[in-house]
């Protein structure tokens, strides 16, 4: 194919190249991490030292506390985890791994990113409007999120309206991206590449995208009704006028719970690629994992009401959702056990990406086991809206999003920049992050079991939550957060240092099998010329009788 030399704007700004779009998503996501983490730093400091003048910020009012907690959740889920794990890695890897020259709809892909960027600007702008940012919690339950139906005030409501608008635009962006993912994997696989020869991460992107597409519709409907309630005075969720606030909760969580798996599945896939390449063994039980994940994807659509056990739903519904929730642990138990079995008798190399994957497995087990607690409806009577829940979902999301995401950055950085990241700095980053992460959330588990409820700016009025032990736990959590933040400095230095001084990577530094490693690093514009022929699955490591312990998918012999 003949390509004219594109001018700078075409190449790096309004690009239709999936790799550039992936990078744009990645950089936007990484910038938003800084915002989200800073918010958590401010409110954790407030919790450890209530009412004091916080370094780098000042005094935090209860109003700001609610805004910061709301925006921390929103940003970390929708502007960090989704863009980095799904959009960035999906864009970077899908065409390369299926042997395609680009996404199926490159222009749609570009629109997807720019829509996302507009949503990011709208969200950040909401901090600076009169009345402040949205403060109704990231779940935005009405009537609170609808101003309590006390009349419409345009300027006071602007922060919340921008928030809803930003979330809606963001979903539109991912809908476009999702269509692209599905069509590319469905129609543009290289000749010879069968479905069950796809790298696991591609399966994970497909199932996650399907889950997203199935579940997002009700949420968009719910968000539009909320926006109308806020702006033109409809009463969809206003019980005084025949509406029902619990309706919103159903619409929200019908999306909200599958969303957890939308983040989780790509991470599991990324981990599988790193795990096999670093233990030099085929993935144990590839098909079992694929089937288990499909089951989990389907089950995830019928577990949502476990977020509402005590929210006023009919108590007879609880047992059904309790059973489905506890059942969903089974497919994930299959997957995690298969990963551990892959390590069995492997030849394990402790490169930084592999360390982060192992850190993910070790820490995620804690998140999974505490999920069993919360799947139990009766335990939720006690634990709902306490710090036990906060600690649990951070123990799932941080291993999934942060550890797997970081592992993937270390693993594919050489592919997309042509240079390796520094291993010493990487190991400092790994141990500092993974060890001190426990220091943040184990104290919160303990306080949660002690009954400490969430979303309280200052516990000074609560003698039962101001015992020496509980105060101490809050300080330990905050200190650990600051330590983890400091341990990200070697990571940032590493990225900039390696970008210019790193060891040249060559096309296949990890001796991997999948197709992206068969082209130059960074890959040229139309990825492959010609499109490769695929002969086998992605995990043919240590095949007996071969000289090399890997066997790229496109090598005939």
């Amino acid at each position, binding site marked *: 194919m003949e390509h004219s030399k594109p001018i700078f704007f075409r190449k790096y700004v309004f690009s239709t190249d999936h790799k550039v779009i992936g990078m744009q998503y990645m950089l936007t996501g990484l910038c938003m991490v800084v915002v989200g983490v800073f918010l958590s730093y401010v409110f954790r400091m407030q919790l450890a030292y209530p009412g004091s003048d916080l370094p780098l910020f000042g005094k935090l009012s209860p109003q700001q506390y609610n805004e910061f907690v709301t925006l921390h959740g929103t940003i970390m889920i929708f502007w960090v985890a989704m863009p980095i794990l799904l959009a960035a890695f999906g864009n970077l890897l899908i065409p390369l791994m299926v042997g395609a020259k680009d996404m199926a709809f490159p222009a749609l892909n570009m629109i997807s990113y720019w829509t996302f960027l507009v949503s990011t600007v709208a969200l950040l702008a909401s901090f600076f409007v009169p009345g402040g940012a949205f403060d109704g919690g990231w779940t935005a339950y009405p009537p609170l999120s609808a101003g*309590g139906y006390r009349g419409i005030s345009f300027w006071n409501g602007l922060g919340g309206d921008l928030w809803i608008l930003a979330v809606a635009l963001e979903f539109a962006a991912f809908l476009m991206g999702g269509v692209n993912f599905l069509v590319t994997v469905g129609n543009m696989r290289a000749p010879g590449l069968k479905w069950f020869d796809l790298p696991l991460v591609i399966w994970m992107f497909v199932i996650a995208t399907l889950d997203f597409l199935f579940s997002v519709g009700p949420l968009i409907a719910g968000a539009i009704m909320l926006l109308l309630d806020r702006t033109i005075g409809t009463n969809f969720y206003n019980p005084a006028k025949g509406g029902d606030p619990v309706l919103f909760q159903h619409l929200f969580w019908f999306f909200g719970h599958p969303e957890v798996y939308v983040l989780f599945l790509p991470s599991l896939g990324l981990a599988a690629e790193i795990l096999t390449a670093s233990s030099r063994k085929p993935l144990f039980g590839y098909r079992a994992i694929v089937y288990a994940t499909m089951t989990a994807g389907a089950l995830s659509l019928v577990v949502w009401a476990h977020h509402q056990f005590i929210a006023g739903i009919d*108590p007879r519904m609880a047992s059904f959702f*309790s059973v489905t929730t506890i059942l969903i642990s089974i497919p994930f138990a299959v997957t995690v056990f298969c990963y551990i079995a892959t390590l069995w*008798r492997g030849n394990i190399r402790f490169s930084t990406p592999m360390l982060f994957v192992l850190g993910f497995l070790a820490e995620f087990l804690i998140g999974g086991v505490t999920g069993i607690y919360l799947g139990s409806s009766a*335990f939720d009577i006690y634990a709902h809206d306490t710090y036990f829940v906060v600690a649990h979902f951070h123990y799932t999301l941080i291993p999934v999003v942060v550890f797997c995401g970081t592992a993937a950055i270390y693993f594919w950085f050489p592919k997309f920049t042509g240079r390796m990241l520094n291993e010493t700095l990487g190991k400092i980053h790994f141990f500092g992050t993974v060890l001190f992460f426990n220091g943040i959330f184990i104290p919160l588990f303990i306080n949660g079991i002690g009954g400490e409820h969430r979303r309280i700016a200052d516990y000074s009025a609560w003698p039962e939550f101001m015992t020496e032990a509980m105060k101490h736990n809050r300080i330990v959590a905050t200190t650990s957060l600051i330590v983890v933040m400091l341990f990200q400095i070697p990571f940032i230095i590493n990225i900039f240092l390696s970008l210019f001084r790193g060891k040249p990577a060559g096309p296949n530094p990890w001796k991997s099998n999948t197709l992206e490693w068969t082209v130059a690093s960074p890959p040229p514009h139309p990825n492959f010329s010609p499109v490769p022929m695929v002969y086998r699955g992605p995990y043919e490591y240590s095949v007996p009788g071969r000289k090399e312990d890997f066997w790229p998918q496109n090598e005939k012999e």
Partner: protein
Amino acid sequence: MYLLPENISSFGGEIDSLIGFISAIAAVVLFLAETALLGIVIFFRRKPGRSAPYIKGMGWRQMRWVLLPVAAVVVLDLLIDLKTHKAWNAVMQSLPSKGMRVRITGSQYRWSFAYPGADGLLGTADDIVRVNDFAVPVDSNVIFDLAAADMIHSFWVPSLRFKQDAVPGRIITRWFKAIKTGTYGIACAELCGVGHSDMKATLRVESREDFLRDLQSGVNSGGAEVRAPAGGAENRGAELLNQKGCTACHTLDGSKLVGPSYKGIFGRKTKLADGREIVVDAAYLRRSIREPEVDQVAGFPAGLMPKLPLSDEEIHEVVEYLETLR
């Protein structure tokens, strides 16, 4: 279970034993899985000259190493489900037929508790209403209708092992039986606005005689903490401000919460929402307590303050007290 607060409800034992049961299973599973992971990672680290075997995990002979542990997980899951179902039923689905009836209403940012008056009926004029102070007799069933006046609130009593959201537009009927006298905290566990952190009430479990005397006297014997400045602690006006939950929104120290602070309120030049400027006097304060929506102070949200059932005498005492807060 030393991490949990003391249990004082008849059904709390079910929850505690469920927590113990899940914890025992979780501890064993977690220990085995982490040990296996750590052992494998250390034992099979890269060594020169050794190569990995070609094992794909196909067929029963290989997959049983995964499927048998998974089967164990399934069995444990089902055991947890059974025990969960039992505990859930005990708390949420076994309303006793006899017991004292109360109505609990959450509103920004206080809990109010209505007891039937002499007519024995709830929702009539002679109801006895207490704000942020919930006295119940020990060893008796308390059946309550939970309602919310404005936002979603959540009635949360760690010591009772009980939590239930209060949802506007719904009346949710639940029950408990406290089995130990004492004073315990009641919280709101659902984000309900800027004063959510201060939404706090007290549960007082009393002997039957104390409870009856308490209810008839109409005076709170304990309950909400009096946060008056030094020297004013004996003042009945200060006591009322606390009992009625006023201080959840109005501070005594000059800081701004949902409503204007009481500090220096008397004689203060104040701008109203309609742009007029007035000087706060006793008449204005009395009117604002009776009809909060009239002549609101500029810069504060409208419609938040509830009309409180205060007698003329009580209003007089409150205003007198406010006058002293220079």
